[in-house]
C-alpha cells in the first residue's frame, strides 16, 4: 500500500486572508490517502527563480468527501510570495502526506495553542478530536488582530481564546500570559502547540510546571521531507532524529534542551 504520493492537485480556491496570509484549497483527482492531523505536504513552487526546493506546509484541513485539503500559509520569502499568487484552476505539485501526527487519547482534555500561522495544523486536529468526541479548547496568539486567522473556524470545535500583543483582540500579551493558565479551573491534560520556537519552549515550561503533556510541532528547515537527506534533524533523547519522519510533532520531553 502506497502511503505517500507525488501528485498535481487542482487549486479550487486561493482565499486571500490579508497581504500576509492565504489559504490554498486543493483537490486531488483521486481519493485522498489517509491524512493524520499534524502531517504536512511538500509543495513545489513553480516559476520562482530563487526557490529551488519544495516548501513544507502543514495540512490545515481535510475533506475526504470532496478529496480536498487546505493549506494556510504566511507570506515570508519568495516561495510563499509566489504561492500567494496562485490562481484558481492552476495545479500545484504536492508530495504528501508526510510526517507523524499529534497523539490523540480518548480521555484527553486538549488545549490547542497556535501562534500566528502556527495554528495551521490545529484546525484539522480540532476537527479530528471533535469527531472522536474530545472537547478542545483553542488559544490563538498573534502580534495584532490581523494575525488572528479564521478564529470562527476553530469555534466550531470548542472554545477559542485569543491574545494579541497590541491588545487589538482578546487579552493583551503573549499566549503564555493568557489568564487561562492561572485559572483555578485549568484542567487540561495536554497542550498541542505550533508556532515560533520561543513560544513553544515557553509553553513546554508551563506544561512541565503543571505536570501535563505538551506536543510541539517543529518547523525545521527541510530539503526532501521524506527522510532521505537527514537535513531536518532535531536533537532528541535518542540522538538526532528527522523532523520530517519522526516529527514534525514531538512530545517536548523527548527533545534535548527543551
Amino acid at each position, binding site marked *: 500500500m*502506497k*502511503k*505517500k*504520493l*507525488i501528485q498535481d492537485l487542482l487549486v479550487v480556491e486561493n482565499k486571500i486572508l490579508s497581504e500576509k496570509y492565504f489559504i490554498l484549497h486543493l483537490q486531488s483527482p483521486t481519493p485522498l490517502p489517509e491524512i493524520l492531523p499534524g502531517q504536512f505536504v511538500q509543495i*513545489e513552487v513553480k516559476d520562482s527563480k*530563487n*526557490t*529551488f*526546493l*519544495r516548501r513544507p506546509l502543514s495540512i490545515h484541513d481535510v475533506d475526504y468527501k470532496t478529496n480536498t485539503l487546505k493549506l494556510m500559509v504566511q507570506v515570508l520569502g519568495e516561495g510563499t510570495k509566489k504561492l500567494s499568487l496562485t490562481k484558481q484552476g492552476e495545479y500545484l505539485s504536492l*508530495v504528501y502526506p508526510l510526517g507523524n501526527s499529534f497523539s490523540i487519547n480518548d480521555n484527553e482534555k486538549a488545549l490547542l495553542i497556535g501562534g500566528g500561522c502556527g495554528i495551521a495544523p490545529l484546525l484539522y486536529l480540532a476537527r479530528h478530536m471533535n469527531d472522536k468526541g474530545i472537547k478542545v479548547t483553542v488559544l490563538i496568539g498573534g502580534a495584532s488582530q490581523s494575525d488572528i486567522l479564521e478564529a470562527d473556524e476553530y469555534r466550531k470545535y470548542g472554545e477559542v481564546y485569543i491574545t494579541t500583543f497590541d491588545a487589538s483582540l482578546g487579552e493583551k500579551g503573549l499566549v503564555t500570559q493568557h489568564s487561562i493558565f492561572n485559572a483555578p479551573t485549568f484542567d487540561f491534560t495536554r497542550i498541542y502547540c505550533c508556532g515560533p520556537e520561543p513560544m513553544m519552549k515557553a509553553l513546554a515550561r508551563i506544561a512541565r510546571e503543571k505536570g501535563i503533556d505538551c506536543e510541539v510541532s517543529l518547523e*525545521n*528547515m*527541510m*530539503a*526532501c*521531507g*521524506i*527522510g*532521505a*537527506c*537527514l*537535513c*531536518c*534533524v*532535531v*536533537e532528541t533523547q535518542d*540522538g*538526532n532524529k528527522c523532523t520530517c519522519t519522526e516529527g514534525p510533532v514531538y512530545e517536548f520531553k523527548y527533545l534535548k534542551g527543551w
Partner: protein
Amino acid sequence: MPNLEVKIKDLILKNPVMTASGCFGYGEEFMDFFDISCLGGIFVKGTTGSKREGNAYPRMAETPSGMLNAVGLQNKGVDAFISDIYPRIKDIDTHFIVNVSGSTIDEYVTVASKLNDLDKLNAIELNISCPNVKEGGMAFGTSCPSAIAVTEAVRKAYHKTLIVKLSPNVTNIAEMALAVEGAGADAVSLINTLLGMAIDVERRKPILSTITGGLSGPAVKPVALRMVWQVAKAVKIPVIGMGGIMNAADAIEFMLAGATAVQVGTANFIDPAVCPKIIDGIEDYLIRHRINDVNELIGVI
C-alpha cells in the same frame, strides 16, 4: 528498444541511472513513489565503522539552483547496516552499493572488509571526499598520497568492485583519478559536493552549524561535467558522473562527457519520482536519435 545496459567492471547495470549516496536513504523512503528495482543501482548513505550522530542542526541551506548540506555522515554504523538494513534490501532486484566513509584508514578498511562478506552486495563506493566531517573525509580526497594510501589499503581488504568517489575541491582532479586508478580502484565516481557557505545577513551568522557545507544541485553541473570530462580523458577505468542531474538531458550530458553511468542526488528531493523519468528520457533520446546502445553515448566529446 535500445540497449540501456552498461558495465562498471563486473557490475552489470540494467541502465546507467543510479541514485547518489546521502540522497536516497536506503531506497525504502522512495518505494511509495516508484518501483526502485527499475534503477541501475542505489548508492546508500555514507557508512562508518561505528554510529555517528552527524553535525548539529541547521545542516541545510538553499542556494541559487542548489543547496548546501552539512549532514556529516550521520549513520548507524556498518554493523547496524549489516544486521538491520541489509536483510531488508538484499532481495531487491538492483545493485545496492554502500558508500564507505571513515576518519582513519583503519576505519575504511574495517567497514570495507565487513561489507566484503555480504553476498548480495557487489560493490562499494569509497567516500574520500566528504566535506562535512572534521577528520578524514575530504582530507583523504584532496591529496594524492593519502588518496592512494586509503585506496590501496581498502583494495587489499575488498575483493569486489571498488569505486572511489572523488572530491571536486582540488586543483587537478585528473591527477587524483589517476592516483586512485593506480592504487587499484575499479572505477571512479564524481563529483562529491563543492565546499561552500551561506550567510544569514539579517542575523549576521552563517546558516549552517558547521559554517561551511557541501554544495550540490544544478548550480554545480557545469563544474561536475568539466571534471568528468577531464577524468574520463585521463583514466582507463569507468567513470560514474554526477552533480546537478535533474533530467535525462543532464544525464546524457554526463555520458557524452565520458561517464559510463550517472548518479542522481539532490533532484530526488524535489521530485522523488525523478529517476524513472530520467531512465525513460534516455530511452526516448536514443530512439529519437536512432542510437541502438546507450554505450555509444559514452565519451563522444
